[in-house]
């Protein structure tokens, strides 16, 4: 990892940044999207919020390229489009599974897509992405999200939170499996606030908990979404004719 040159972290960036603004932090990012215009746009957006130290070290336009670039550069975070030639974001996730599992320097994925169709969202999250944001996100929020993902937290957009709530909502189901399959009351509350458009910091204030706690709740939700709940998710997806 190249050293960050500018010791600029002291400048407090705008509101929503959580624990991300440790001075001199530097995140290496690969951008995977088949639209060059969009990649340029993201670059420019990130460039405008330079001080937070996100560095785009590679770009890719399809699945094969993405694998090559990611393996070569070993970024900390990959911004991944869902719709890609050659199998889509899910395919990239599948083929990068060993990199994600790497204990020393895991590659983490943040889905960044124009699509907010439920099957796309749920698909990449279950494929192992640590978060999902739509392309309408502002540059600042995007940078914050990258930091959060790099730290191992999950990033949920309101819409994604809505889908997750929807997936877990049907409580009339037979009492399946362990408690793991259920969201706790607190997690549900947190998700609900995310769905209502609250930032993590606002949620923390609202619920009188720390931002870290909010993040751990969200991570827990992500874990449940990925690891368990296959049962309910399948049922949910079937009910919606998504599978």
């Amino acid at each position, binding site marked *: 990892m190249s050293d960050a040159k500018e010791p600029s972290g002291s400048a407090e960036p705008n509101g929503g940044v959580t624990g991300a603004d440790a001075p001199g932090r530097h995140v290496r990012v690969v951008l995977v999207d088949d639209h060059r215009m969009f990649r340029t746009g993201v670059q420019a957006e990130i460039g405008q919020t330079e001080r937070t130290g996100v560095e785009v070290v590679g770009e890719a336009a399809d699945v094969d390229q993405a694998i090559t670039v990611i393996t070569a550069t070993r970024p900390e975070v990959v911004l991944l489009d869902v719709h890609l030639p050659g199998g889509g974001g899910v395919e990239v996730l599948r083929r990068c599974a060993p990199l994600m599992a790497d204990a020393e320097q895991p590659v983490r994925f943040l889905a960044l897509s124009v699509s907010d*169709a439920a099957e796309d969202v749920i698909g990449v999250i279950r494929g192992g992405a640590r978060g999902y944001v739509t392309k309408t996100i502002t540059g600042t929020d995007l940078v914050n999200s990258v930091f959060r993902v790099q730290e191992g937290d999950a990033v949920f957009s309101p819409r994604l939170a809505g889908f997750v*709530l929807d997936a877990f909502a049907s409580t009339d189901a037979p009492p399946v499996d362990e408690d793991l399959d259920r969201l706790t009351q607190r997690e549900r509350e947190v998700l609900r606030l995310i769905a209502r458009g609250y930032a993590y910091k606002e949620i923390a204030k609202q619920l009188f908990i720390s931002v870290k706690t909010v993040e751990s709740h969200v991570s827990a939700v992500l874990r449940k979404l990925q690891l368990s709940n296959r049962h309910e998710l399948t049922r949910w997806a079937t009910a*919606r004719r998504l599978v």
Partner: protein
Amino acid sequence: MPGWAGRVNIDGMPDAAAVPLADPRLPRKLYRSSDGRWLGGVARGLAGHLGLPVIWVRLVFVGLFMADGLGALLYAAFWFFVPLGVGGVDAQRPPALTTETAADGRRRLVARKPDKGQIAALLLMVVVAMVFVGKVNLGGGAKAYLWPTVLVGAGVALVWRQADNARRARWVEVGRRRRTLTLLRSAAGVLLVTAGVSGIFVLQGSAAHLGSVLQAALAVLVGIALLAGPYLVRMTQDLSEERLMRIRAQERAEVAAHVHDSVLHTLTLIQRNAESANEVRRLARAQERDLRAWLYKPEGTGKDEADEPDTLAEAVRRNAAEVEDKHGVPIEVVIVGDCPLDEGLTAQMQAAREAMVNAAKYGGDGGAVQVYAEVEGRTVFVSVRDRGPGFDLDAIPGDRMGVRESIIGRMERNGGTARLRAVPDGGTEVELEMERAEKTS
């Protein structure tokens, strides 16, 4: 054919009504009817063409049949030469409006239960054939050939009708699930013909040679199959491939048409209104919403835009879209669960709409307005939040009734609750809660 009756635009008598409607210059062409027919659709087609009741034509055919089988020959000739017609599928002939309600009703009935009519027709034909056989007084030798001939005729009819059905199925693209049945029918037809032909051979006194004749026939068939088989397989493959391509091309044309209509149109408007940021934003948002709805079509949005929404999710989406269009402020909608609208919920929707309008008007500068609706058990919760300068209900003069009446008052009158509060980091959130009405069922 199941699934067939549903397509009501198929007209049994395309030429009868459609031609004057479509193009008066076209000569009235005779088609066999593909709908409500008993055998080949000849009688029904003729009846439609001549404007006579079907039963008359059928009786005439039966009568002619009695005259030394002339009717059968005639029928076969018609069947062979007259094309099968389906109104409304052929591009040149738009769906005809049949005025004959009686015939229409009858046709539908027959179409829905095709087997009944066919069985009746077959029985009738057997009876007629028997009468005919009993009546005909040919030379003793010739009479013996009659039954094999009838058998051959029945087999040929079976196969031909099958071919007609296959053709019709192609027009309307009926699924392939009936393939086994098709094969069975064809096999039965072939069997009948074979039996008839063999019968003739046997009668000719060459019974002793029957075995060798059959063997020779089999050898010829196998030879033909070997020679033509690969070619046939290849042809069917090509055909299905071509069909696939056609379907794809159609789909692409549809996409192109949609993109052309809406997207290009919007882009033109945007270019023209480039200096007015609000208008551009509004257009872009409306277009985005439209395109999304079209691309990702969630369940239940296939409905016509015009009619009233009858579920909560639909109502929320509609309200948000309308407010967004009107005020040019993006509104992000997240909906969890869904339920049918009742009286209280309708009031809640109106209150929510009012809240969205307020948020768009006074809080729209801070970014998108966020709307969240959730159905959990009996409770329906709607939250509308903006990131504007905030709002203090107590600071609003008492004569300004907008919020008090149309949001809070409306909710309370209908047994719900409304809360307005300032969000810690600026902005206002309106929370609306309402119990769903008890199910009456």
